[in-house]
């Protein structure tokens, strides 16, 4: 395929003003062709988002810093163009949908960029109709973007960029907060755009979501490009060294010497028909939980209503000491609402919750907080102290459960020693999560509840969190994971509570739940790759 470059980076170096001595990008040479599908991957903090921001001129025009080398778009250096000159050619979709949607309706959201270009009204209307046709959002035009699901919001952001008819759309971690069904929607939309000859650049560290869609992958490590080539060839090199997890399908394909490497489960199944998959690649699942441990949490027939709508319907389950339960389901299934009921932040309309034998309806939130330590998805919601140490201890002091010995154990468990005197706000995303988890445990609660603990986190963090959860479980800690990250929950939870539209569809061991195809479909979830490959008798 003969392609001319649309974006070219040459000897590109960039350092943010607040960290001038550290190159966020270092000696980058990269060509991006129009109409190609490029995956830029790397661990958190590797520089992939920074690299993306050089393509549309946000670096150097919006961010202040030191820039060396150059980036050209269609032959013109971005230093000679403004973001306003570039945005209709290299469109960018950001990670946080909440901040990039700032109009009252989807229609006005899509119109915003077209109005910026100064297009006549009739042309704006035509482009809105054309782009929403392509992404299937026509019915959403009058709706408020902030009232949509996160997947729908990402689609609105993509449609708003698509309407500009850019040569390339750059997406920064588009799947960070999406559940599997929304990931599927966004992936399908991107594939459709690519078929229309629009270039797609996706920055992502979750390889299973993008490998089979991309024509080329570039791995970034410490601000430098270390791997560059077609995914099936690049995966043969050491991607773990870049903080990336090798997906299961290519791992098995590699071991079975299948070339080119299969990039997804479907291709692997086609190419390895009749072969047994290597048993040592099968993920280790937790053994069945022995039900002879004391029960710490009982939820009985809980119903939760908000106005006219029912958020939770007849939810019942128990949790024992040393058990890890994952509450799984798609976005909006009622998982976080259920979590809030455990700590008394929301009260059941009907039914009962007993925490350590105490009826939660009779207890204040501050009393329940002694038994249930919660870390919500966004750690920034809780940080207000100047140092990590103060942040971890403040909750324990408020609960009159300050125990220096236990806090020191937590510091060791979460490997926080080097961070103790730093401001929590200056930490990386993964470090912030570790501080929030330690803070949740500081009051020595019987139950630890983590809300979407792996959302937006890379392989290194997930592995470290898995290790910590294992250690906590072995000490007898009861754990509740609220997540739509099934491959994580599959490895680290004894049991899954599958929620769909506020109801428990199945309660059982991970592979039991996934083997119930109707329930999975009802919950808009797909089985993990491991389940699909190993539960069908190939091993």
């Amino acid at each position, binding site marked *: 395929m003969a392609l001319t470059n649309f974006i070219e980076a040459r000897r590109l170096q960039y350092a943010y003003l607040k960290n001038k001595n550290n190159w966020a990008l270092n000696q980058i040479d990269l060509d991006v062709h129009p109409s190609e599908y490029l995956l830029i991957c790397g661990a958190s903090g590797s520089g992939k988002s920074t690299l993306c921001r050089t393509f549309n001129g946000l670096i150097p025009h919006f961010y202040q810093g030191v820039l060396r080398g150059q980036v050209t778009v269609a032959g013109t250096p971005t230093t000679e163009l403004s973001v306003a000159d570039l*945005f209709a050619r290299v469109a960018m979709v950001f990670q946080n949908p909440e*901040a990039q949607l700032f109009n009252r309706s989807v229609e*006005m959201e899509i119109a915003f960029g077209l*109005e910026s*270009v100064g297009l006549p009204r009739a042309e704006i*209307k035509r482009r809105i109709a054309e782009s929403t046709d392509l992404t299937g959002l026509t019915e959403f035009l009058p709706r408020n973007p902030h009232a949509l699901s996160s997947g729908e919001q990402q689609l609105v952001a993509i449609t708003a960029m698509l309407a500009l008819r850019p040569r390339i759309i750059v997406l920064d971690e588009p799947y960070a907060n999406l559940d599997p069904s929304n990931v599927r929607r966004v992936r399908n939309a991107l594939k459709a755009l690519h078929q229309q000859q629009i270039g797609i650049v996706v920055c992502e560290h979750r390889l299973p979501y993008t490998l089979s869609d991309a024509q080329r992958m570039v791995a970034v490590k410490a601000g430098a490009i270390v791997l560059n080539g077609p995914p099936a060839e690049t995966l043969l090199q050491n991607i773990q060294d870049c903080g990336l997890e090798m997906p299961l399908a290519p791992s098995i394909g590699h071991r079975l010497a299948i070339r080119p490497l299969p990039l997804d489960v479907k291709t692997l199944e086609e190419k390895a028909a009749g072969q047994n998959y290597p048993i040592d690649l099968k993920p280790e699942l937790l053994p069945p939980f022995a039900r002879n441990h004391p029960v710490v949490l009982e939820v009985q027939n809980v119903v939760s209503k908000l106005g006219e709508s029912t958020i939770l319907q007849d939810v019942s389950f128990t949790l024992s000491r040393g058990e890890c339960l994952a509450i799984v389901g798609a976005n909006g299934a009622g998982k976080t609402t259920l979590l809030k009921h455990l700590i008394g932040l929301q009260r059941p309309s009907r039914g009962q919750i007993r925490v350590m034998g105490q009826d939660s309806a009779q207890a204040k939130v501050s009393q329940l907080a002694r038994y249930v330590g919660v870390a919500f998805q966004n750690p920034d919601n809780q940080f*207000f102290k100047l140092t990590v140490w103060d942040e971890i201890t403040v909750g324990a002091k408020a609960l009159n459960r300050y125990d220096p010995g236990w806090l020191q154990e937590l510091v060791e468990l979460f490997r926080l020693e080097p961070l103790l005197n730093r401001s929590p706000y200056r930490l990386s995303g993964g470090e912030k999560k570790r501080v929030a988890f330690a*803070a949740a445990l500081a009051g020595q609660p019987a139950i630890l509840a983590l809300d979407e603990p792996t959302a937006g986190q890379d392989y290194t963090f997930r592995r470290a969190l898995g290790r910590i959860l294992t250690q906590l479980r072995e000490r007898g800690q009861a754990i509740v994971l609220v997540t739509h990250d099934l491959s994580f929950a599959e490895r680290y939870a004894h049991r899954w509570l599958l929620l769909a539209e506020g109801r428990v569809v199945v309660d059982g061991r991970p592979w039991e739940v996934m083997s119930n195809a109707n329930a999975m479909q009802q919950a808009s979830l797909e089985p993990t790759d491991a389940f699909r490959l190993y539960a069908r008798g190939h091993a």
Partner: protein
Amino acid sequence: MRSGCMRGVMLDPRTKLVLALFYAILIVASQATAWLAAELGVLLLIVLIMQKGRAYLRWLRMLLPMALFFGAVVWWSIDWPAAVDAAMKLITLTSTFFVFFSATTPDEMGDSLVKVRLPYTVAFVFSTALQFVPVVGRKAKNVFDAQRARGIPVEPGWSSLRNYPAFLTPLLIQAFKLAEELAEAMEARGFGRPHRSFLKEYKLRTVDWLALAGGLLVLAAVLFLQGTN
């Protein structure tokens, strides 16, 4: 208009703004308690027609302490009839703008300001600030929940006053972060580029001119009647 029975009445946002200003002048000029009561009554009727009763009550719950405090100050410095008038005037005046903002979306508000020749960037910042009030409200709720879940009391009240930094610090930092992300997203969509066009077209139609003329007439008549009493 956005809701209930008012949905059919499609006034230009500029008309709504001018009518709200006429009403505000009327309230400020009213000296008798009976007139203020009547003006408040008209507003309550509009609130009911718009089916905004619940929202109004929630808003009134926040406003009442301020109105009572204001009335108490006036009572202490003048007398109680003046205090009643002052508190009623505050409630009626702010109710006018409750009705206006309930009937006008932030976008319409921003567009109408552009139409009265305010620079687009200024009008957009104004309307976007209104647009993001619910977003910041959700963030405030999340911070509130996160701190309570740690056993840090941040509920309103004197006893938890010393814990307010636990609520305000994360909220402010997140609001700044949101503002930064928003600015970046707007930059990436060509905000501030010259020669902008507009999808929505606002034109003063017959119904707007009739409403404006009617509003002016009512204002003049009521002021005249109040003057002769």
